[in-house]
């Protein structure tokens, strides 16, 4: 008995399934297309930023411009400027454009393994916003370009170190001297013998130190005596204090006397001023008296001239 043929779905059901499959494909492709367009930033509102660089090596279209590690823009185009520099046109999304200010700094750094990145730094976030179409110079840093310089510097350093640590170098001599100094320090006499160079001089230094000690002891005694004489109960300081008190008392008396003299002087000054006024009046009085006397004399002369008893006043010389 032959097996029954597998049941085929009805034509309508087949067509429905076929349409479903077609719709599934269209939905998948459509959704993917929209997602990719969104991922590429087609639906994003952007503003243009132009970065000028000496060398755009490593920069590719679609590369991100990052700010604090977050991508805020995308390289849209790279072209040569008229002066031969590279112009990197970056589309920055408008919702993130507020992170870029007029004082923002842009860097283009190339790592050792070739990964290039463009970064933006904004130190002062209160500065004006970077306008659309702004043009800025980008600071380039290339780690691989620093390598030859680094290698050369390292080579130079190694050569210097080799010269420094050579057997006939100054450092070796200095270390040998240091060793001999430390050996001398270990010997009897130690640091004293090292400083003076020989035992005789070391003994003299010790003798000098002993005498200095003795001198200091004597000076100490002198100072003690002087202290007693100056600051003791019968000392100079006490006498000086008493003298100062007496002088203060004398000065007080003198002050009182001076006050009295001051009063006398004031009175004398008054008298002098009165005398001055009187002198000035005396002068006027004198002038008036002289004028009166002159008048009287003139009157007497007139009387004598006119009176018969007038005498001949002419003098006749022998």
């Amino acid at each position, binding site marked *: 008995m032959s097996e029954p043929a597998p049941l*085929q*779905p009805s034509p309508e059901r087949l*067509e429905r*399934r076929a349409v479903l499959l077609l719709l599934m494909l269209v939905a*998948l492709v459509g*959704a*993917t297309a929209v997602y990719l367009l969104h991922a590429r930033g087609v639906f994003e509102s952007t503003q243009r930023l132009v970065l000028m660089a000496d060398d755009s090596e490593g920069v590719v*279209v*679609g590369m*991100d411009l990052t700010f604090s590690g977050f991508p805020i823009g995308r390289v849209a185009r790279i072209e040569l400027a008229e002066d031969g520099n590279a112009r990197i046109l970056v589309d920055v999304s408008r919702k993130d454009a507020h992170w870029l200010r007029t004082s923002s700094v842009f860097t283009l750094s190339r790592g050792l393994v070739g990964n290039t990145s463009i970064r933006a730094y904004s130190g002062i976030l209160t500065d004006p916003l970077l306008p659309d179409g702004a043009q800025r110079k980008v600071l380039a840093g290339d780690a691989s370009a620093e390598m030859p310089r680094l290698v050369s510097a390292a080579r130079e350093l190694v050569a210097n170190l080799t010269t420094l640590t050579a057997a006939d170098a100054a450092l070796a001599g200095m270390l040998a001297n240091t060793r001999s100094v430390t050996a001398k320090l270990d010997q009897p006499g130690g640091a004293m013998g090292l400083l003076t160079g020989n035992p005789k001089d070391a003994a003299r230094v010790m003798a000098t130190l002993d005498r200095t000690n003795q001198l200091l002891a004597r000076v100490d005694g002198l100072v003690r005596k002087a202290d007693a004489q100056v600051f003791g109960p019968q000392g100079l300081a006490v006498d000086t204090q008493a003298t100062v008190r007496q002088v203060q008392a004398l000065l007080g008396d003198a002050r009182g006397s001076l006050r009295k003299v001051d009063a006398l002087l004031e009175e004398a000054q008054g008298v002098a001023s009165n005398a001055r006024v009187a002198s000035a009046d005396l002068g006027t009085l004198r002038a008036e008296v002289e004028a009166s006397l002159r008048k009287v004399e003139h009157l007497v002369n007139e009387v004598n001239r006119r009176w018969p008893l007038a005498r001949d006043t002419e003098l006749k010389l022998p």
Partner: protein
Amino acid sequence: MVSSVLDSHRLGRAVLHGWSAWRHIVHLGALVGALALSPVYYGRRWRGALALHLVRSSWPLLPWFTLLSTLLSVIIIRIVLVSARSYGLTQYALEMVVRVLVLELIPMTAALFVAMRVTIPAAGELAAMRRSDALEALRASGGDALRGEIAPRALAGMFAVTLLAALSSVIALLLAYLLSYGFSPWAIERYTRIVGHVFSPVVTLVFVLKTLALSAAVSMIPIGSGMHDREDRYGDTSVELRGLVRMFVVILLIEAASLLGNYL
């Protein structure tokens, strides 16, 4: 002397036969392509045959292939993420996953899966129909073998490859996000940017063309070989095997061309 002459004669015939086979495959492909672009072909008369083969090719494959590609994607994504993390290259892991898995592996996997499950058996059916003169009988009765039997199978194969590739790609992108960031929605923007960075216009075009080329290759080559080759001429290799070899060669060439387009 005689054997060398016979060998060169055989070689010449093999080259001519191969050239003839490729010409037939390309010709058949052009005919099927023309039919696919003709709106008239989707009329009531041929809609039934198209729907039948479309559903037969794609409907049974959906669950199994989805499961298989999900498993493979999880494994590959996990391996790449863990390896990248151990080398301190986490920032490149996602991009690598998207490039390797979505751009390269998934289209090829979908094409080979459809070839094994759909188009090679379909080519065998057509070859059997040709051997039993069923196609001749159909033509004699006024039917159209190309529109009724050959084109629906070929177009269904192409449709199946495209659908499975699209579905698996979406699933792979979703899995890559989940395995990298978990169920957190806060990394969607960053992940979208990475995907957008990978899918530049050139890369997207190459991906689409590659998927279409692979679908055409796995559909047309087995069917074309089945319709052209005959068993009695080359007894040492079967018709299916020859079709398979031609298909793999073309798949290899398509892969090489896509790699050139993406990375050159």
